[in-house]
């Protein structure tokens, strides 16, 4: 960026009669989702922090057994799944709007959004897989590291 204002507008006005319209409710739903998921995430995240770090024995209770015990219950599976999906969609949509607002070149925009969506898919798929396929009682592990309900 030079010190002075760019005398040319970033992009020349589109030729032809009017702009290419991109009408539709997509951005409207996106806008509403950001607000709704934001409120939900506050509850989910602070609930998560409280249960993990404050309730019971506090931080020192977190080990394999604690996490395994939580994910054995469908309640915490749903809680964590909701948190994962909402946080990822919320964050990705936020980053998408930031890229749209700041990336001036089409190629920059394309590359940044490509990386963003790749990271989104990777984290969501891996996270969901872990929550559902987690084995709380792997065979051959020492019993003192496993949750109490495991019978070897």
């Amino acid at each position, binding site marked *: 960026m030079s010190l002075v*204002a760019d005398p040319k507008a970033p992009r020349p006005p589109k030729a032809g009669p009017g*702009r290419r319209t991109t009408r539709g409710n997509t951005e409207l739903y996106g806008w509403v989702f950001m607000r709704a998921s934001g409120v939900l995430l506050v509850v989910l995240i602070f609930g998560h922090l409280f249960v993990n770090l404050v309730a019971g024995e506090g931080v020192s209770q977190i080990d394999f057994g604690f996490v395994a015990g939580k994910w054995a219950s469908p309640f915490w599976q749903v809680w964590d799944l909701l948190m994962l999906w909402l946080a990822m969609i919320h964050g990705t949509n936020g980053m998408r709007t930031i890229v749209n*607002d700041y990336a001036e070149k089409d190629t920059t925009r394309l590359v940044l959004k490509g990386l963003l969506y790749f990271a989104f898919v990777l984290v969501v798929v891996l996270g969901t897989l872990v929550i559902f396929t987690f084995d709380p009682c792997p065979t051959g592990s020492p019993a003192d590291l496993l949750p109490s309900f495991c019978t070897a």
Partner: protein
Amino acid sequence: MTATLDATPEVGAVPSFEVTLKVMRYLPSDDGSTPVPHWDEFRVQAHGTDRVLDALHKVKWEQDGSLTFRRSCAHGVCGSDAMRINGRNRLACKTLLKDLDPSKPITVEPIKGLPVVKDLVVDMEPFFASYREIMPFLVTTGTEPTKERRQSAEQRERFDDTTKCILCAACTSSCPVFWTDGQYFGPAAIVNAHRFIFDSRDEGGAQRLEILNDKEGVWRCRTTFNCTEACPRGIEITKAIQEVKRAMITRAF
């Protein structure tokens, strides 16, 4: 200002001072070479009652006739002389020099985000294209009434604020979202849509909401309030944009 005895040497005397104008020049030449934008400095003698426009006039009339800028009424209603003064969008005809700290050079640039034609003159066409798109005229159906279309004082009050727009582009060209690619409709177009959407006599509201419910429409507004701060008419632009958003949401759900 309160009058004090020691500060006023003569009743009715206007203080005068010298001021430096630092103007962004962009001068296309006949030979077709790309002009390089650069700063030019001018020193002018000004009075306490002078505005930036008066100083620009002095430069153009007495020092450099090639200095180019738009102005029509010179009294803050035509919306021709919006420019970036000391980094903020204002009307040159409504900005007093004494309010800008005349001890330092006063920077004057064209408004951002629109192609510069020469010096402070920009191509307003992309701005007006967005304005035309929201259908800035009364839309009605049925037969013409034989008398006026009546409206209560409350109904008129609903959109009073947005009728004040003078289309100077100070708001749209202060919007960072508009700067990026110039595809966003911009605050001014939304303000003028608001003026008709909330007019009880108008029947094109749904159509206008449809037009602004666009990827480049109201949803690109990040409520940074740059537009509200820049508006020389004091329109609460961000509030108007939010009201249009709300109308869309109540329509969709």
